[in-house]
């Protein structure tokens, strides 16, 4: 008898997962394999009939509370992720506001010394060319300034005369 050959087929048959005509023919002639299939079915039935163990109520309560317990963690994670994202987006804006320092000119021997030193305003005037446009503009502004001064002075005098009248 080649009972060993039907080992897997017998398991499938005992679980109602397929039954080949070949196996059926073998079972018809082999009492031992027939008994084996029946015993497997009986073990299954006994296992199914055994009092079902249920989880404890505290465990059931813990399982039911899991989403509530995990939700705040998700919320914090989402908040942290949002903060990081915001920081990444905003960081370049701050960097743009701070102007980069001007590049330092390399000091070479051929550079001209452009520093000046004046002791007084007269020195400045003396350094300017006599008939330049710039000088003319400066003189006009000096005149304009003195006219404003005069108006202020006249206004002050009228106020003083009013005060003495009262």
């Amino acid at each position, binding site marked *: 008898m080649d009972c060993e050959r039907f*080992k897997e087929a017998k*398991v499938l048959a005992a679980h109602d997962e397929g039954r080949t005509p070949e196996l059926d023919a073998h079972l018809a002639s082999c009492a031992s394999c027939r008994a084996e299939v029946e015993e497997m079915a009986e073990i299954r039935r006994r296992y199914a009939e055994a*009092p079902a163990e249920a*989880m404890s109520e505290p*465990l059931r309560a813990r399982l*039911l509370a899991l*989403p509530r317990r*995990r939700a705040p963690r998700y919320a914090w994670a989402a908040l942290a992720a949002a903060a990081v994202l915001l920081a990444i987006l905003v960081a370049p804006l701050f960097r743009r506001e701070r102007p980069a320092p001007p590049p330092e000119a390399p000091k070479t021997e051929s550079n001209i010394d452009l520093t000046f030193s004046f002791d007084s305003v007269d020195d400045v005037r003396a350094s300017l060319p006599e008939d330049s446009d710039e000088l003319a503009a400066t003189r006009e502004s000096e005149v304009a300034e003195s006219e404003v001064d005069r108006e202020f002075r006249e206004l002050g005098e009228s106020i003083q005369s009013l005060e003495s009248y009262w």
Partner: protein
Amino acid sequence: MADLVKGLQSGQAWAYERLVRDYGDRIYRFVRRMVGNRHAEDVTQEVFIRVHRSVGSYEPSGSFDSWLFTIANNMCIDNMRRHRNDRRELPLVEAASANGRPPDPSAAPVDREMHEALMRAVDELPEDQKQVFLMREEAGIPFKEIARIVRCPLNTALGRMHYAMLHLRESLKAYKE
């Protein structure tokens, strides 16, 4: 089933409650037989945390039950590897009463003894046989799916079940004579 999955994926409270109600005890029993009483509650909780976290990426290529018990199986294997040296613990009979479910009073004493002997024998099965036995008998997963989950050929899964059955048959022999 599809509405349960959609509900879970959209974070609906009713869906999660239904998951615990419909699958909680089955997962717990599977886990408990796999890892033993001491770690059963922790591992069951880990399974539900993983399911809650991963259900968004669940794609129904196989059945939802297969997906769920694949997670349970993987977490049991992880736990067993971590605690391989300290896995000797309460026999099932004690564990069952410690679990708050009293033995069925209507069952005849012989039947009760047979049930207890059967459960003890399941607990004593080698890991690979127990895995296949529990997936088929506790989770109701077909053998083809079991073979895919435990990554072995179908005939290997069936062979493991065959040897598991032989072992369990021996454990019941004394009660049948």
